[in-house]
């Protein structure tokens, strides 16, 4: 596996190889299994000016390193990236387009990326976006590469917008008797003016949410959220967690510690109003699974036994009219279900990667 330590070296490797598949630290094995190159040799925070709310880092920089630098200045990743403890890099996270539960409040990784420097399939260095928090010049290449799974180029340098850490956090857990009630509560909270940081649903009936803000307001806000959750039904059990317990609960969710070693993890974007349908369809399928709905029901994290086939996942995708992305496990193609806009993407690819150097054979 190549491990370039400079942009020149990276260009040389790309120009001389027939096929190139880049990865970061390899924390999403379904996406990195055919990797020929790792960006972990390109590491370090290049610029960080806390008062600008921006940082620029090389693609192979571990998220944990950036998180610690941000935390020292009272700031965080607003998109709450997953696999931080597992060692994920900022480049790999961008290329896989992943955000965590905290993206509920302000947006996902695509909403916070500002600039990118990358090397294309022809070995050209391309710069897109900018280093300031607001910019409408040029094409939005930083957004395009988000989720592009290495098909557009190898990411070298990334600039992101960050936000201040709330003074205090509190987690609230509510247990409902069935998925219908839990899903209705989740939607009620998502539509409310409570400005939640996270809003997850663990089937069949558990809703998790997180409040962040000034300590002076947390008690009152928690009570208001409790009232909204119970909606007049005091039999709904509501518990709160703070300090270390709060931190651990979200780390457990974000790091996917709830997924076992013999399961494969998939990400499936859905709509909040589909949650009960998803539960019904999965109930009818012939495989067991563990699930967690996140971002107010906009994403399903689905853990299935390693034995489940791509066809079974495709069928679920088709029934829901949604795509899916496998993060762990072994798949002929980690992208499942229909792909939108492929004509548009294909034309752009003819410029980013005219020789299809970054296209790996799906059966490889």
């Amino acid at each position, binding site marked *: 596996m190549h491990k370039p330590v400079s942009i020149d070296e990276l260009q040389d490797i790309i120009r001389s190889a027939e096929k190139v598949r880049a990865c970061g630290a390899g924390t999403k094995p379904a996406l990195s299994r055919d990797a020929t190159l790792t960006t972990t040799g390109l590491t370090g925070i290049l610029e960080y*000016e806390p*008062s*600008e*709310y921006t940082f620029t880092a090389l693609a192979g920089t571990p998220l944990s390193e950036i998180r610690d630098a941000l935390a020292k200045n009272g700031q965080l990743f607003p998109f709450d990236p997953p696999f931080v403890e597992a060692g994920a890099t900022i480049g790999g996270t961008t290329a896989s*387009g992943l*955000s965590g539960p905290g*993206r509920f409040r*302000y947006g996902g990784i695509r*909403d916070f990326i500002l600039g990118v420097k990358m090397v294309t399939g022809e070995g050209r*260095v391309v*710069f897109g976006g*900018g*280093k*300031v*928090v*607001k910019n*409408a*010049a*040029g*094409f*939005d*290449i930083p*957004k*395009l*590469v988000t*989720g592009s*799974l290495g*098909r557009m180029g190898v990411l070298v340098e990334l600039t992101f917008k960050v936000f201040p*850490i709330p003074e205090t956090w509190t987690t609230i857990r509510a247990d409902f008797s069935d998925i219908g009630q839990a899903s209705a509560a989740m939607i009620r909270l998502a*539509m*409310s*003016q*409570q*400005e939640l940081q996270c809003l997850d649903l663990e089937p069949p009936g558990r809703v998790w949410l997180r409040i962040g*803000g*000034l300590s*002076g*307001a947390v008690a009152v*806000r928690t009570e208001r959220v409790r009232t909204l959750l119970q909606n007049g039904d005091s039999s709904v059990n509501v518990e709160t967690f703070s300090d270390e317990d709060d931190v651990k609960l979200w780390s457990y969710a974000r790091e996917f510690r709830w997924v076992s070693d013999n399961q494969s993890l998939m990400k499936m*974007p859905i*709509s*909040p*109003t589909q949650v009960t349908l998803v539960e019904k369809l999965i109930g009818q399928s012939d495989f067991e699974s563990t699930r967690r709905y996140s*971002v*107010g029901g906009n994403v399903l994290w689905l853990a299935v036994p390693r034995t489940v086939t791509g066809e079974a996942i495709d069928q679920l995708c088709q029934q829901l009219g*949604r*795509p899916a*992305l496998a993060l762990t496990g072994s798949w002929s193609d980690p*992208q499942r*279900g229909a*792909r*939108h*806009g492929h*004509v*548009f*993407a294909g*034309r*752009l690819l*003819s*410029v980013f990667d005219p020789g299809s150097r970054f296209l790996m054979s799906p059966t490889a």
Partner: protein
Amino acid sequence: MSAKPESAVARNVAAFFTELRRIYSADQILTNNAQLAPYESDGLTSFRARPCGVVLPETQQEVIDTVKLCHRFEMPFIARGSGTSLSGGSVPIEDGLVIAMNRLNRILRYDAQQRVAVVEPGVINLKVSQHVAADSLYYAPDPSSGPVCTIGGNVAFNSGGAHCLKYGMTSNHVLGIKVVLPDGEIVELGGDSLESVGPDLTGMFIGSEGLFGVALEVTLRLLPKPEKYYTLQAAYDSLEKAGNAVAMVIASRLLPGAMEIMDRLSMDAAEAASAAGYPKDAKAILIVELEGTTDEVEAEKPLLHRVIEESGAYIVEAARDEEHRLKIWKGRKSAFSAVGRLSPDFIVQDGVVPRTKLAEALAEIDRLSEKYKIRVANVFHAGDGNLHPLVMFDGREEGALHKAEELSGEIIRLCIRLGGSITGEHGVGLEKKMYLGEMYGEDDIEFMHQLARSIDPLELSNRGKKLPSAVPPALLTRGAHPLETAGVIFRD
């Protein structure tokens, strides 16, 4: 009329219009000079071009058929909303076709539980928030032109507004777009979920300034309306102090929804227009708006007041009620048009500088203003470093426009030099394309050209905008309008 042989171009244009009449009824096609006049320029009146015609589609199919027809005849076109662009982005292509999208103004789907609305591109920005207000939802991007500008235009130019630091720009609030590419191919980008799989094609389309085709349907993300706003206006005896106050608010870890600064000259202008009641001796006004749940905002208030007091504000006034709050915002949002009271013409600049360089940028603009002996009013989104210098001139004076443009150019270069951007939210359009190559390298510009041509090899869709280029071919056409030669249009 002499019996000159028809030119190939004219014959072609006549055939084009014959085909166009198969798509549209007569009253949906505008060709005479009086009808075309309103479409000759946009919010930036110093650019002007005459299209060969304007069509007024009412359905998506009409738009698709029009784009296909343009492709067949190699007729350049621009899709246009309300024409509020401040960068010349919606100026027509000389002798090209204008597709006026305003009649495609239906809200096709609204799902409060899902917090999305699917709208046609001609829907007015503010109408979206009005439509969903009963569920306490709103559409966050709020350009000052919100009451008139369209979602289609917002998408093409990635419009911003006063709340971008916290909530981002248009691209952060659009989940999916149905597009007709410049050759008539239909593509669906993104979807209706906040999450997606694969490259962010929606994000790539937004801000492409028409070069990638025409949006037919846009899926918008809606947010719950903040329960409480707390808007404060602080007066300073220097612009620098107001700038430093912004840095202090940021350092306090508050995340206000908006932070805006107006200098003395813009206050004078706004005062003349809306009697906003600004302190007469203030050199700068800072507007800070907190928003969120009532309890959170109540807890943040004392913290904000402490910071503002320490920053040296000599008058601090908080909005008493919603009416007062709207009055404060009206003063701020009317500043652009109000400058018209102080000067017959002006250029609005839109550069961005790193927030820590705000004071330096303002001092330099002040120096440039003196050097050129041109008045420059400053109104800006201080929270995100987005400057809006208003460069005043009198277009009737010989060379005044040229001088004002030269000064504007120096301000743009200043923003690049300080590590910022040539445009925060108005887009490149016609006005700033010669500066794009100074912000990006030559290779990057060439790459952008290649991207544009990959989507539109004939460069039909909004040709000549955004990317620096030689003079677009259509502008070289002189003499009689091809349609006149073809006997399709007549001068009144």
